[in-house]
């Protein structure tokens, strides 16, 4: 689970986050919708520990070891093979050698990358790279997933596959925070929804039975035309 308490981030006159507070339990998926510049990425980065807030605090149960990050950048090394990448990142998280190989194999077949395992990442297609990035993020079996606009640049099929995967992962007890500016993408996955504007949550609560259309309407009302 993760939490934020009166989180603020400001420097000089620029205020990226303004008093954000919430808690997220295991197995819940919070989807944060907001226009560009609302502070979504900053919030995620503060939760991840990459950015230090100027006021307030945030934390993830289990610390950095428990966090898996998936963004629109793959965080992989182009000149290393898929397998080498997974091996490197796994070792960084102190996964014991025996488990390393097993998890590699599992993730590669789960994400359909067996054929590409020995190829350098720079030779992969966009969709394959995204899948490899997901494998990397899952190598250390994180209990918290932070997703920064993960659907960017993916075609319909790939986006659906990613959605299904995320759904499975959430069902297995992970806490997930996903930020996006596109209401349609994240709706299905959400158990909780937040609307963000100018560094603040203008709405926060369970999704309930609302569908994408209902959420879009609520979003427009809360955030204004964005």
């Amino acid at each position: 689970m993760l939490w934020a308490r009166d989180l603020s981030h400001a420097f000089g006159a620029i205020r990226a986050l303004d008093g954000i507070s919430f808690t997220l339990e295991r197995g819940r998926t919070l989807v944060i919708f907001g226009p560009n510049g609302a502070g979504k990425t900053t919030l995620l980065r503060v939760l991840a520990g990459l950015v230090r807030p100027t006021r307030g605090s945030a934390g993830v149960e289990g610390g950095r070891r428990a966090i898996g990050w998936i963004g629109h950048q793959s965080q992989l090394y182009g000149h290393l093979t898929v397998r080498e990448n997974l091996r490197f990142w796994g070792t960084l998280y102190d996964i014991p050698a025996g488990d390393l190989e097993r998890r590699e194999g599992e993730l590669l077949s789960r994400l359909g990358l067996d054929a590409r395992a020995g190829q350098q990442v720079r030779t992969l297609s966009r969709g394959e790279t995204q899948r490899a990035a997901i494998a990397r993020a899952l190598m250390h079996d994180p209990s918290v997933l932070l997703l920064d606009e993960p659907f960017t640049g993916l075609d319909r099929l790939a986006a659906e596959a990613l959605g299904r995967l995320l759904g499975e992962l959430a069902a297995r007890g992970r806490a997930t925070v996903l930020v996006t500016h596109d209401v349609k993408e994240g709706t299905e996955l959400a158990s909780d929804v937040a609307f963000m504007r100018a560094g603040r949550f203008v709405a926060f609560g369970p999704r309930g039975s609302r569908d994408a259309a209902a959420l879009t309407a609520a979003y427009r009302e809360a955030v204004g035309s964005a």
Partner: protein
Amino acid sequence: MTLAQRGRWITIGALMLLAGIYVRALRFTPVELTQGPAQKIFYLHVPAAWSAMLSMGLVGLASILFLIMKDARLDRFAAASAEVGTVFCCVMLTTGPLWARPIWGTWWTWDARLTLTLMLFFLFIGYQVLRGAVTDPRLRANYAAVVGICGLILLPFIHLSVYLFRTLHPMPIVLKPSAPSLPPEMLVTLLLSFGVFTLLYVGFVMQRYALGEGESDA
């Protein structure tokens, strides 16, 4: 009175005092025996060097404090101090050759003080080039602070290495720029000049800082 206005008054005051010093230097202070009237530039040259060092010292200090306290005002102060320091370095580096030429017959010499000031000048330039190249204000402040601290720590090493070099490779130096055996009138003029240049530093930094405030709030 706003900060900028106060700064302007202090600067004007300091400049007037500087003119006063020069009247004193030219009229009431004895002409140096061997160097002649060219030596008068000494009252500009040495205090400018002092102000440049002061600027760097304060940039370093502000940088350390910034990394601890993360206050944007400290960063703004460091930026102002660095700009002002660059100006003083330029004064020092132009008056130096102007003085050296009639006295030593050469425009430049690699003595410890001149070399140190030249490196200081490069440090200031590098600092400002880096600031100019980073758009994100938080990142820029962090980066500038890192360079500022490293630069400050570097100075004693530069001084030491040039000094060691000089003692092992003695160069023909005719006169030491600020011999301790100065007649009292010269010493007084010099000390007054130090005071005025410090005042100039304060005035300049106040104005530059105020300008910086205006920029970031815009």
